């Protein structure tokens, strides 16, 4: 199977420089079909540069990029890719219906305009002009443009930047419902955590981490497990799987762990009498600080 179906995206030793800024420095990664992958990193990390390269909007100085087994611009020209750009503004003097209908036709009429409007919840806004939309509504129009050709691959650059939390959740529900291979750039860490199968962390043009959200978390910081035990014994607690650090105040126990699941299972299994258990902390944001601050400008 893997020989017959090329990867959705493949970067091999890709470098890109803008003037004096080394936007990407020999980065290598692959994205398989069916994955939903977040490109995560602070501003200036190289996320948008990577997205531009994947879309054929700019060319790499060095390295090889393949999208759906072909050159990025060929995949785009064939309408196999849908994209929502960070700065993809809408024309002020066209209606939502005009824009979506144009997109449907540019992609060769694979869908009906009404169907795409329905899918993206824009039916009622079809007659609204491009400059009379809220930030979230405009993003939905961009999403409709990206979806107009039933793409095999979706690129989303900071897709929910103008959305409130509810709109964000609805947006992601719609994206995940499509089942399309998705690559999205974000600096919302909770967004990568909640919606990506895999996170590629970029910092200063390099890949500094690549794995599932929970792997990224466990790479640094881990998680914190708090509970109340009748007779806590620090030595026993430190021997539990995953535990790196123990602090006990009376009956209150705080454990730092690399594997919260195993730690919690062991707490219940071999110690017992566990009350008021909480697993928290070391969210992705916390986890990222040591990863991305190394060479921060």
């Amino acid at each position, binding site marked *: 199977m893997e020989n017959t179906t090329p990867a959705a995206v493949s970067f091999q030793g890709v470098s890109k420089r803008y003037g004096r800024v080394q936007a990407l420095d020999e980065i290598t990664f692959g994205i398989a079909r069916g994955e939903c992958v977040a490109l995560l990193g602070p501003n200036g990390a190289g996320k948008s540069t990577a997205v531009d390269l994947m879309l054929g909007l700019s*060319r790499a100085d060095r390295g090889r990029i393949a999208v759906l087994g072909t050159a990025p611009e060929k995949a785009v020209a064939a309408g196999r890719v849908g994209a929502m*750009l960070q700065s993809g503004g809408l024309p002020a*003097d066209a209606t939502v219906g005009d824009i979506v209908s144009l997109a449907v036709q540019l992609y060769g009429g694979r869908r009906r305009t009404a169907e795409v409007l329905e899918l993206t919840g824009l039916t009622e806004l079809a007659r609204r002009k491009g400059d009379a939309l809220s930030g979230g509504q405009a993003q939905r129009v961009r999403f409709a443009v990206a979806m107009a050709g039933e793409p095999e691959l979706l690129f989303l650059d900071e897709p929910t930047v103008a959305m409130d939390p509810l709109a964000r959740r609805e947006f992601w529900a719609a994206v995940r419902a499509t089942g399309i291979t998705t690559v999205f750039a974000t600096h919302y860490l909770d967004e990568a955590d909640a919606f990506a199968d895999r996170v590629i962390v970029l910092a200063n043009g390099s890949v500094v981490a690549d794995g599932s959200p929970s792997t990224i978390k466990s790479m640094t910081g881990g998680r914190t497990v708090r509970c109340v035990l009748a007779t806590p014994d620090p030595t026993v607690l430190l021997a539990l799987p995953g535990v790196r650090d123990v602090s006990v105040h009376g009956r209150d126990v705080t454990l730092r762990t690399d594997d919260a699941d195993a730690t919690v299972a062991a707490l219940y299994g071999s110690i017992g009498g566990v009350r008021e258990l909480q697993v928290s902390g070391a969210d992705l944001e916390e986890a990222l600080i040591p990863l991305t601050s190394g060479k921060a400008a």
Partner: protein
Amino acid sequence: MFSFVRFEIARALRNVKYLLFLVMTPVGLYLAYGRGADASPAMVAMAVYAAAGGGLIGSGGGVAEDRMRGWLRQLKVTPLGNAQWLAGKIVQGVLMIVPGVAGVTVAAVTAGGVHLPAGRWAALIALVLVGSLPFALLGLLLGLTLKGKTAQAGIVVLFFGLAAVGGLIGSGTLPGMLESLRHYIPTYTLAQAGFSVLGGQVPGAGGLAVLAGWTVVAAIAVLVRWRRESHAR
């Protein structure tokens, strides 16, 4: 490409300011000055005015804004190719002159009492349509070169400059160098070609060569600029 042209024209037609400017101004000027003996030449001058304005503003005005807003980038990640985009914008720029030229023609026939043989009407309209090509390309070039409101202003300034030097607004000879310079200005040569057609003559080759030259130079400049736009951030 046709869907793209249709989309662009629908956009332009929604823009009421644009229509007012491109139809009302030449028609208004014609009604003010184009009576009596001057009815026919004034019609040609105002048709060229509408052609130059429609070509420049129709194709270039929105490009700068589209570029600034990021709509061009969005279009570039659809299957719409660069060449198709360019062809679409040029076709749209030429088609956008139709309302202004039609308005002037209707005013000339009804209010100005202009009567011409059918063949001469056809030749005039064909000349003005084809002759609007360099203006559409110049507008596109400015739209791709200047930013946002500067582009809009630049296009309007260029338009009135070309209209004045070309003798479309105002009359008589220009002072000094400008009088010989105007023979190389597309508004002037297009109007002169129109006057020839009006008089039943074939337009002079020199004037047509000037128009062709502007078209080729502007087309090359647009292509170079567009290529750079495709890869630059």
